[in-house]
């Protein structure tokens, strides 16, 4: 009963807040964003903040996150710091096109001038206002607000984020690096809404880096919709590196048309509570989807990867591999569903989840699921939870390598299977280095940060 009361309390608080700011949100935002709010809000009211009773959130308790009195950034603030000064990415030899977002808002000083003809990287709010035709068939079209209250809440409160648009047959060889910074002078609830549209025959690599720049508590609730047109290719990498007082709910929706190829690789290095929702809809024949994730958790951190892969058309291939290394009292969840719908014959769908527990206190819940409504498919799923192989450890040590280094070697080996799937070589090397530093317990930073926080 008490759970129910708490749920109502926190949900009511949010509902109250929304009602207070609704008029302001609507005045500030373009129609395209406003049009989706009403239903989304109703869907949130119906569902409320998820509790353990919600099967999809059975192992991730979001309730404690809402004890905190967050401030909200519904209005864009002028940032007096030059973020490009504060933040310098040092992924070596990785020549990226840099895009910065601060507290969910697309930064004004992002430079669009040196982009190849036709490519658009801009603010969602700006595009929705000045060029709504570009995104009206995509915005809020696959992020279903009925299935997840956090997605509903995001859609109801959305104000800004980034839009990446790649025109037909344009192959953008330079990776786009999107850096999402959380930086405010109080505990903050951040809503960010993003859109990636890769038109037929186009090709793009996107690297998303999530960072916190100071020690305040942040709750990020972001939604990204990704559309891969016919024969488009999208590589979407995420590096999550936030301090342990932050929480992130990250929902990624991908819709693939025929012959398209999408790779997602989520590397979780740090973060207090992280929930990654991923829903992939294979909506045309002969699609290929590689879905990878690797998380390193320690202390009381929590990682939850929740995936749904829907094979709606025949002859598609999906391949999921999620790995977790859990140290101290950290906890992990993998919940992955493959749904092969009727007539999606000749589907190949594979899923694997391997977990390494370094202590007796670390805990992993894994729930692989297959729903198959077609009769000529090849599907597999498997999950393992284990410790470091002591025999292998002894073997390495018996050759003169210290125990600590031997353990590192084994953990790096465990992670390697995911890291090797990173196609951008300089990024792969950098991630290798980051992972090694992370495992050594040194602060893994993929940037030089002038803020000297010990997050």
């Amino acid at each position, binding site marked *: 009963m008490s759970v129910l009361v708490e749920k109502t309390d926190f949900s009511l608080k949010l509902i109250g807040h929304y009602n207070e700011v609704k008029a302001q949100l609507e005045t500030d935002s373009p129609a395209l964003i406003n049009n989706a709010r009403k239903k989304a809000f109703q869907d949130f009211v119906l569902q409320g903040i998820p509790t353990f009773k919600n099967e999809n959130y059975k192992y991730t308790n979001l309730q404690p996150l809402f004890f905190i009195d967050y401030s909200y950034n519904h209005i864009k603030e002028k940032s007096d710091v030059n973020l490009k000064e504060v933040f310098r990415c040092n992924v070596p030899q990785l020549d990226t096109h840099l895009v910065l977002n601060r507290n969910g808002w697309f930064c004004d000083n992002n430079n669009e001038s040196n982009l190849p003809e036709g490519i658009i990287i801009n603010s969602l709010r700006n595009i929705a206002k000045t060029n709504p035709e570009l995104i009206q068939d995509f915005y809020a079209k696959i992020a279903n607000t009925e299935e997840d209250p956090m997605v509903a809440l995001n859609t109801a409160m959305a104000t800004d984020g980034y839009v990446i648009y790649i025109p037909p047959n344009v192959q953008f060889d330079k990776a786009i690096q999107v850096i999402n910074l959380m930086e405010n002078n109080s505990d903050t609830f951040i809503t960010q809404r993003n859109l990636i549209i890769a038109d037929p025959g186009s090709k793009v690599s996107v690297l998303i880096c999530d960072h916190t720049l100071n020690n305040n508590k942040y709750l990020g609730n972001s939604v990204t919709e990704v559309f891969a047109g016919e024969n488009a290719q999208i590589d979407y990498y995420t590096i999550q590196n936030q301090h342990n007082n932050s929480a992130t709910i990250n929902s990624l929706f991908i819709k693939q048309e025929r012959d398209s190829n999408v790779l997602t690789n989520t590397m979780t290095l740090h973060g207090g509570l992280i929930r990654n929702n991923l829903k992939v809809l294979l909506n045309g024949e002969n699609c290929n989807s590689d879905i990878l994730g690797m998380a390193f958790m320690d202390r009381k951190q929590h990682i939850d990867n929740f995936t749904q892969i829907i094979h709606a058309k025949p002859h598609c291939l999906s391949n999921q591999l999620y790995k977790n290394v859990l140290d101290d009292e950290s906890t992990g969840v993998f919940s992955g569903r493959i749904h092969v719908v009727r007539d999606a014959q000749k589907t190949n769908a594979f899923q694997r989840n391997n977990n390494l527990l370094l202590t007796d206190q670390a805990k992993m819940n894994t729930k692989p699921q297959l729903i198959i409504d077609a009769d000529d498919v090849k599907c597999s799923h498997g999950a393992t939870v284990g410790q470091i*192989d002591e025999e292998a450890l002894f073997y390495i*040590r*018996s*050759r003169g390598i*210290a*125990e600590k280094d031997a353990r590192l070697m084994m953990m790096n080996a465990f992670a390697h*299977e995911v890291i090797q799937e990173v196609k951008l070589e300089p990024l792969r090397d950098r991630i290798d280095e980051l992972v090694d530093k992370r495992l050594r317990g040194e602060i893994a930073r993929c940037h030089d940060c002038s803020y000297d926080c010990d997050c």
Partner: protein
Amino acid sequence: MLSIKNLFVSVEGKEILKGINLEINPGEVHAIMGPNGSGKSTLANVLTGKEGYDITEGEVSYNGEDLLEMAPEDRAKEGIFMSFQYPVEIPGVPMVNFLKTAVNEHRKHRNEEPLTAGEFLKLMREKKELVEMDTQLTNRSVNEGFSGGEKKKNEIFQMALLEPKLAILDETDSGLDIDALKTVARGVNALKSPERSTVVVTHYQRLLDYIVPDFVHVLYNGKIVKSAGKELAHELEAKGYDWIKKENGN
């Protein structure tokens, strides 16, 4: 070099070694033979520092130091090497990284500069020829997908790289065909020197045709019940272990 005195070892309360005494001097080759379950592998594991063995009595000194107090990696750097009976596959750990780290840890211990990548590859090429290792194998993860014979060759290859003072070959002959056996033995013999001692643990006399021991010990029921020269191996081959068992009251 190695001195084992009255060594008693038990595993999970069960006594396996019941008072082993053994002296090994530089340059000597000792064979330890015995039927299944006599404690041969336990002895090899205790000497290399594997966990899970309780030393209830006795001592082992190695070059004057208490061996049993040393971590496995320190024993290795002090020159003890074991060729595993069942080498472990370690997916994701590349052979080259593994070997280079091991070699450079040994060098660091001797206050030598670490080998550069180029120097290491040269050393590796040299040693590979010794055991006729397939070049492709060192491009894989440690032992991953190696055949039984390749795994054993890989052990001797590592031995050649690390140049131990005391090599313990734990049933290196098991699972080898006759050609591989000869290759492995040739590798071991090529590394023979007046400073280097070898302990060959085996069931069969076969390997001892190629690696000729100075001493043969029979381990039975946790004790060394017989020690003699190489002729003892032939006697065992001809008569089996039954007479040993009878002599020792079973």
